[in-house]
């Protein structure tokens, strides 16, 4: 009987059961225990499409749009879907070489054969239109719309700043960004990035293996709409800015103009400059490299970054401190003793007003000596040590040294020396006034940046206070300026002494022997002071700061022209032209204007 082998049915039955048990264990492992497969499934089939919000616009103080957005198109590629195609035609449409196309596709494939990668960035609308017609011939390629910056005119590149691809640091630090996104790199674009960028929207789609959309994910329950960025109105006066830039054309230097009563920056010019429109789209990289290589450094914002000795302008500060400290009074006179320090020929400075008007160096030598060595201690070293700290505290209250708040990234604080600084240099109690007297006329170790000098003009125009200079005026029409830009900051000098220096600055422009005669504007009561920055490397820098009108001032500014000679020569007339433009809306001093426009330093 063959049935002697019937026991073998148990072997076969056992085999079935063992196989089933092994299968069930494996199912438990992949379906219940290991979460990897669930994640992979989502990655496979749920495509997350970012809907980019429109970036906020910039408007000038009159509500005129100066920066807006313009559609641009990224050509995307999904390597897995590419079929053989006419490479020559594609390359010519996209302005690519065959090698660039090849390497682009190779690197896209390396990233992912199934996910889209950017092949060509920011195609122009014209190229896009041409490509769109032929797109059906190129499976695997498609175009994704994005916005890029566009500029109404070529003004204020340093103020507005530029955008760039987000770096590793920001990618890690902020969940908002993903690779390839744009972020403000400099200027106001960087300063107000968080307001301008808006909020991305996300739409989820189900996609099949060919990345074809198969409908929404869970009926769009998790989708979010993009929130556009906030439009920012800035205090810049586009017309004034443009005029200032034209005056500075061909010169190295900077201008900062502030509305004294509000601290709003009306114009900020740094020359040489560049057209902000070239740092956009496909020309960005070559333009950027070219600008970086330029020996004149057009991307450097001289208005906030260039440190100069304030020169004679600083005499105003010295006078105010001395009056406040009681080192001098309104009628104190000093002999113009050229043995102490060099000076030019001028009538005798019989009081502080005349000393400012003539910009008398020996006078302020004496003034500074009285401030630094007030005679509290008989030891001059000890006296200077205490004196410099009192002096420094006054100077800092003018927004000089560190600490002037401006709503721009990268603002240099200048430098005001303290006792510790000289101790390190000379040794403790081994220096006195005689060691540091150069500071008396704004040379020596004292340094400031142009925006600080413009702010100083605003302080004098305001007779003793300032509001931190700023661009922000309104956010999406809401004009509540951030608190830090509305706070009134009083200097340590009482307002009554300011009238004296205001009169002096008036005389600088309007009286005979004043150093700022070239700043006169018929019919406008302008007050100013020249400052020649001694430059060991070449021709002196020409500096001038001013405000107008004398009563109820509307504009305060600082003008620096590098290697142009005395302050009265070039900076003063430029200041007067800008003031005329701003206050009257037109310039009648044609001769003066032509002289400036024809003046080229490089």
């Amino acid at each position, binding site marked *: 009987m063959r049935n002697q082998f019937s026991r073998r049915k148990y072997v076969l*039955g056992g085999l*079935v059961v063992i196989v089933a048990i092994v299968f069930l264990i494996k199912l438990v492992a992949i379906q219940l225990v290991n979460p990897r497969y669930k994640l992979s499934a989502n990655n496979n089939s749920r495509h997350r499409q970012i809907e980019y919000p429109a970036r906020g616009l910039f408007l000038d103080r009159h509500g005129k749009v100066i920066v807006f957005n313009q559609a641009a198109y990224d050509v995307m590629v999904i390597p897995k879907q590419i079929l053989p195609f006419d490479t020559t035609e594609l390359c010519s449409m996209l302005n690519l070489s065959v090698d660039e196309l090849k390497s682009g596709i190779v690197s896209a494939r390396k990233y992912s054969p199934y996910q889209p990668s950017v092949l060509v960035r920011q195609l122009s609308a014209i190229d896009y239109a041409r490509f769109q017609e032929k797109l059906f011939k190129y499976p695997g390629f498609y175009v994704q719309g994005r916005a890029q910056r566009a500029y109404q005119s070529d003004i204020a590149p340093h103020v507005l700043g530029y955008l760039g691809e987000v770096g590793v640091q920001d990618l890690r630090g902020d969940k908002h960004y993903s690779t390839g996104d744009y972020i403000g790199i400099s200027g106001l674009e960087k300063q107000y990035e968080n307001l301008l960028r808006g909020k991305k929207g996300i739409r989820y789609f189900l996609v099949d293996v060919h990345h074809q959309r198969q409908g929404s994910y869970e009926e769009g329950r998790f989708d979010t709409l993009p929130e556009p960025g906030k439009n920012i109105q800035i205090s810049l006066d586009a017309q004034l800015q443009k005029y200032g830039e034209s005056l500075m054309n061909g010169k190295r230097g900077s201008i900062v103009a502030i509305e004294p009563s509000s601290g709003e920056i009306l114009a900020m010019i740094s020359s040489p400059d560049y057209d902000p429109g070239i740092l956009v789209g496909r020309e960005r990289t070559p333009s950027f490299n070219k600008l970086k290589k330029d020996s004149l450094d057009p991307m450097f914002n001289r208005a906030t970054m260039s440190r100069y000795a304030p020169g004679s302008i600083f005499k105003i500060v010295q006078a105010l401190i001395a009056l406040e400290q009681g080192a001098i009074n309104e009628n104190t006179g000093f002999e113009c003793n050229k043995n102490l320090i060099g000076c030019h020929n001028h009538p005798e400075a019989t009081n502080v007003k005349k000393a400012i008007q003539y910009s008398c160096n020996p006078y302020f030598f004496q003034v500074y000596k009285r401030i630094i060595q007030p005679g509290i201690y008989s030891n001059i070293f000890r006296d200077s040590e205490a004196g410099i700290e009192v002096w420094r505290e006054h100077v800092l209250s003018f927004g000089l040294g560190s600490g002037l708040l401006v709503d721009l990234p990268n603002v240099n604080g200048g430098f005001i020396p303290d006792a510790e600084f000289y101790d390190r240099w000379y040794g403790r109690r081994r220096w006195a006034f005689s060691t540091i007297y150069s500071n008396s006329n704004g040379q020596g170790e004292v340094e400031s940046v142009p925006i600080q000098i413009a702010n100083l003009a605003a302080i004098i125009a305001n007779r003793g206070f300032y509001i931190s200079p700023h661009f922000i005026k309104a956010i999406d029409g809401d004009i509540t300026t951030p608190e830090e830009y509305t706070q009134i900051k009083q200097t340590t000098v009482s307002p009554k002494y300011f009238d004296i220096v205001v009169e002096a600055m008036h005389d600088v422009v309007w009286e005979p022997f004043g150093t700022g005669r070239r700043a006169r504007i018929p019919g406008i009561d302008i007050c100013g002071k020249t400052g020649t920055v001694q430059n060991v490397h070449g021709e002196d820098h020409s500096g001038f700061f001013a405000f107008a009108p004398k009563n109820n001032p509307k504009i305060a500014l600082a003008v620096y022209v590098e290697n142009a000679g005395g302050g009265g020569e070039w900076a003063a007339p430029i200041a007067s032209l800008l003031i005329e433009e701003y206050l009257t809306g037109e310039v009648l001093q044609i001769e003066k204007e032509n002289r400036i426009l024809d003046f080229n330093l490089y």
Partner: protein
Amino acid sequence: MADFRKNFLARVDWITVIIYLVFIAFGWLNIYATNYQEGQELGLFSMLSRHSKQFVYILAALILAIVVLIIDSKFWVLFAYPVYGVVVFFLVLVLFLGREINGATSWFFIGSFSIQPSEFAKIGAVLIVAKILSQFNFSVHNWRNMTLLFGAMLLPSVLILLQNDTGSAIVYFALILVVFREGLNETFLIFGVIGIFLFLMTLLIPFSVLVPLVSLSALIIVSLKEASFRVLLFGALIQVLMFVALIGVSLLGNLELNAEQLVGFAAIASLPVYLWIIWQKRLRSLFVILSVWAVSLLLIASVDYLFNEVMEDHQRSRINQILGFESDPLGRGYNLNQSKIAIGSGGLTGKGFLKGTQTRFNFVPEQTTDFIYCTVGEEWGFAGSSFVILVFVGFLLRLLYLAERQRSVFSRVFGYGVFSIFFFHFFINIGMTIGLVPVIGIPLPFFSYGGSSLWSFTFLLFIFLHLDTDRFDVVA
């Protein structure tokens, strides 16, 4: 007459029929789900889509089942040879007239309708095996009988291999299980299974893991045979001591042996110790087991050496492809990975009917045919996929039970043949989708899309059910 028919219907094994109906119904739902697209109404009878075609195939299969139950079951006993002849004829014919799909020339086309003769060849093969084994004077010890049997059994396999359809060809080897039931010497089977198993394991598992695993199994078998736990403990201790000693030697001698070499040498060095103990204790039977163990180690070492040291890279790659480790042109393991993702993402209760994303959106290749189990796993989760496995176990055990209760050898062997074919398909197909078995493209019975496979499986099952119904009519 009415009495007989009633009687006949009562004798049909309805449990199996119900399982069959559950399988085809659930199978169809999964094919429907795979083709389902959101926002796109699928007419049941748009003949373009697979689910509606499958619906028609199912209707035809049910008619087929009824026809098979009506045809006298003696027909199959009498006409086993002619049926076998016809399927072999078509297998040859398809080589010349067939059309190539996915590299395999295994399809006839009649208009838009296609038929795969290799599926129907299973019927012929099972019939012929039943016929030969049920011959009065057949003996498994007669080599002539055995040559005829294996020749007839494997001829379709060879023809299908010529069509370049390796998966379908391998199925015929499952019929060895039938011969095993009918008395094939177990040693051959065991050696064969161990050999294949070790060969595959060598390629799958690192040498340093496999050798201790094999050694441990050998020791467990010895200790079971001797009914002594001490043998197991003692044997393992010797191996570990050898291993430690070797580490010491390699450290002292600055030999820099790697883990694989240490494990291998430890196993080889232990062998004389065991042999000495066996010699001392005069344990004859253990000698056999130990020899098997030694031969196994030798096989592992030689396969490992051959595969990794002697063979060229492209040869290795080809073997991997044949074994299914490197089957997909889209990249090594793509199929398998996507399949596991689909099943794994189902979780406990699945994503719900028509809610699967992996299978519906073509991430899994061949998702309506060979990888239909992915849809089960994704949409029905662990609940659904374990349900399918458990019902399959019930189905296969039921087939064994039915086969054993046959009174004629022919019916019993046929039953075992049907069992073997279904078991093999179940084992390979589900094992492949969950990554336990190399990717070998054969369908999951009653689930996978396709008329040919559904009809041939229906044929096999219902011929056997009819034989079972008539089991009292024949004399053993």
